[in-house]
């Protein structure tokens, strides 16, 4: 078990966003969380990564209780994260984006006087290559094409050498072609590094093509969990999710 | 010194008067921040212009009956329109910029407007007489208390109540409240956000100018009154919670009365009390007494 979520509860101003969620993820597993808009997927991710504090419950990652840890501590334990909206350092170059992540991962962030430019060139380039951005390394990341920015975000997450990746809609806003390329890239990387993957996605074909297990979130509760075929056949899922057809 | 009850009570009433003036100014500042997200340094300048324009109008209308009230209305509306023009032509273009740019733009307005006022009205101390009906004082607890102050004490809550009614019961009011909560959603619901912002800025400017107009019989109208008031208004808005209407009301009451009662106890340190309240609020509830904590 790399991740255990027990009895998780979170409400905003009386609105139950997460109403008692329980699940576990095995090491090396490729898991998807699906659910209609507003089901609480992003909130769930934010709770796991410590960006939000929970009301009740417990989260254990890699045998460590991370229920009360801050986001920056959680991520140091090896839980990488990408965001639904583009979340990069837009005034920095592509290279600097990745390098910043490498720096913190290698514990160099408290160095006040060493010139930063020559540090970790090799490691950074390796990641740039892995996510296919070596061509663009000197461009200001904010002016990159959308798809590249998403790849860059993945690169930042990878630079932390995570044990597990949480990707929030990694293909949101992409064209069909970009989506396919991105999914392939993610699949490759995950397999190559032996990572555990938990992601949310709105594109069902993507979900069913790479997930080993699918969990369905509805109104803050998990209503189904299992292999793709089983979930697809679940009548309740069909009612709340597929029925909405969008 | 021993104080009779009556003097303490009167002291409290003076605090209330002051609180109502601060409330008028600060509520405009607060609503502009709440909806537009702009911290308007120039708010004090609009207050000053309100006072100067009132002086000007009083000298125009002085022969007609009820001239003071006409002057107040004309002056505050004129300045409110000026606020609208500033928002429409200039401030609007900065919404996409970083917040620091909006802040500095309003500061630039402070500089420009103070010199414009100096250019038009010079540096003399101007003054406006109290309207005839409110001259003199009445007896409360055996002490004299100015009629004009009583008028202000009643006016403040009335405006607060009208405002509250407007926000809660009218469509425009609901839209403004919604805009304060979530701008993007409102735009996607088909509301003309641009126009709404202008309206809010005009209302805010009007409140500032009204404050200036109403204070003109009590103080001298002079250069520098813009900067004096803005600091007090900031303090009140911070204590009450940025963007919180009732918070502003509560904080204005607090600041006004604590200041006047403080004078009874430690005459020289009254101002420090206010700063101490501000620090305590900021440390314990950084988002202010009735403000909402910021998510992210």
């Amino acid at each position, binding site marked *: 078990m790399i991740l255990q979520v027990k009895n998780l509860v979170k409400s905003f101003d009386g609105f139950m966003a997460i109403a008692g969620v329980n699940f576990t993820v095995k090491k090396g597993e490729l898991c998807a969380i699906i659910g209609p808009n507003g089901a609480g997927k992003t909130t769930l991710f934010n709770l796991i990564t410590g960006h939000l504090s929970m009301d009740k419950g417990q989260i254990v990652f890699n045998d460590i209780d991370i229920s009360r840890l801050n986001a920056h501590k959680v991520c140091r334990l090896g839980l990488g994260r990408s965001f639904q909206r583009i979340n990069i350092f837009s*005034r920095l170059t592509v290279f600097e984006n990745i390098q910043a992540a490498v720096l913190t991962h290698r514990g160099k962030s408290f160095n006040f006087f060493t010139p930063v430019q020559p540090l970790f060139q090799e490691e950074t380039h390796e990641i740039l290559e892995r996510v296919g951005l070596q061509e663009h390394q000197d461009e200001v990341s904010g002016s990159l094409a959308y798809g590249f920015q998403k790849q860059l975000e993945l690169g930042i997450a990878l630079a932390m050498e995570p044990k597990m990746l949480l990707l929030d809609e990694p293909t949101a806003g992409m064209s069909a072609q970009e989506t396919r390329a991105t999914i392939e890239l993610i699949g490759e990387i995950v397999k190559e590094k032996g990572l555990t993957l938990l992601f949310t996605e709105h594109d069902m074909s993507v979900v069913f093509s790479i997930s080993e297990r699918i969990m369905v979130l509805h109104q803050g509760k998990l209503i189904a969990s299992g292999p793709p075929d089983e979930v697809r056949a679940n009548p309740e899922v069909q009612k709340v999710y597929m029925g909405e057809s969008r | 010194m021993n104080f009779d009850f009556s003097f303490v009570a009167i002291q409290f009433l003076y605090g209330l008067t002051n609180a109502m003036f601060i409330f008028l100014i600060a509520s405009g500042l607060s609503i502009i921040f709440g909806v537009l997200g702009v911290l308007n340094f120039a708010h004090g300048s609009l207050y000053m212009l309100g006072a100067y324009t009132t002086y000007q109008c009083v000298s125009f209308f002085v022969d007609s009956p009820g001239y003071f009230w006409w002057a107040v209305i004309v002056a505050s509306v004129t300045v409110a329109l000026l606020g609208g023009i500033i928002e429409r032509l200039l401030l609007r273009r900065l919404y996409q910029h970083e917040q620091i740019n909006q802040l500095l733009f309003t500061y*630039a307005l402070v500089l420009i407007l103070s010199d414009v006022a100096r250019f038009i009205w010079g540096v003399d101390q101007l003054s406006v007489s109290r309207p005839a009906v409110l001259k003199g004082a009445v007896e409360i607890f055996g002490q004299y208390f100015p009629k004009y102050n009583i008028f202000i004490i009643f006016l403040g809550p009335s405006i607060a109540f009208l405002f509250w009614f407007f926000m809660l019961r009218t469509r425009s009011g609901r839209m403004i409240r919604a805009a304060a909560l979530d701008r993007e959603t409102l735009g996607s619901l088909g509301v003309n956000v641009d126009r709404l912002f202008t309206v809010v800025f005009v209302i805010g400017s009007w409140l500032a100018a009204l404050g200036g107009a109403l204070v003109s019989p009590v103080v001298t109208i002079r250069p520098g009154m813009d900067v004096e008031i803005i600091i007090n208004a900031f303090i009140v808005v911070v204590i009450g919670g940025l963007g919180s209407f009732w918070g502003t009301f509560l904080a204005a009451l607090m600041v006004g009365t604590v200041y006047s009662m403080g004078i009874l106890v430690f005459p020289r340190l009254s101002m420090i009390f206010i700063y101490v309240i501000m620090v305590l609020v900021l440390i314990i509830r950084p988002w202010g007494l009735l403000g909402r904590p910021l998510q992210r």
Partner: protein
Amino acid sequence: MSRQNWVLIAVLVLLALVPLTGSRYYVFLLTDVLIFGLFAVSLNLLLGYTGLVSFGQAAYFGIGAYAYALLIKKAGLTFGVAFALTGLSGAAAALIIGFFCVRLTKIYFAMLTLAFSQIVWAIIFKWNSLTGGDTGIYGIDFPEFIGSKTKFYYFTLIVVVVSVFLLRRIVNSPFGRILTTIRDNPERTESIGINVKLFQLLAFIVSGFFSAISGGLFAIFNHSIFPDFCYWPISAEVLIMTLLGGMYSFFGPMVGAGVLLYLRLEVTSYTQYWPFILGSILVLLLFFFPGGIVGFFQDQIKKWRPSK
């Protein structure tokens, strides 16, 4: 060595030669510019590099000035000790104030820094017995070994160059790089394992340290100090300098300080409507040159050389 470094050395040599012209005007102006330049650059560590809008930076400038004056005049310390403690006093104040400020973001942060600086001002204004109240502290003489305006100019030049050099090392260090990631995206920075609040606080302290150094220098330069050093218009002025020069370039604030102080000196000779002119400059800047002077020239250079 890079081209930029050559330019810097050339500028330095020119600055060192200025007193040889015998013009006390330029020595006076440049001392002022150097001091405020350091102040603006230290503010920009927060503004341009960490994305924190401090609207109360005058507090640390004023604390530096008062700390130096009090240590020399009341505590009777030697110059070296007092000057070293000046920087530390700013850092200490920044630690305390920053601890509360970094918990807030954006405009709330700006308001809180402003509030604290007003409190510092009020305390200095009211604490007559220690600070002299509105009349300030007077008679702060040049230390013996820099007993003339020219010598003080060189002293200022050295202190400012060393400080700016250190600040430049800091912004080009891994720490500085992390600050820029916080500026661009604090949330994401947290997700690469950074304690954002801690880094913001550290930046705040470093900035407070150098602001206080510039305040201490100004106390010696001015010979007397006043509560107004902490008052908010000074905070606004240094912000304007920073934006005028360009907050996204390291030396921009220095250029901004130079241009603003020079302009003020010239314009006030002709008209008393300087606030109006400053306000208009600011409006022009915001609408037409949002990158500031240095940003504007950088853009022009980029246009001439589209790709490298």
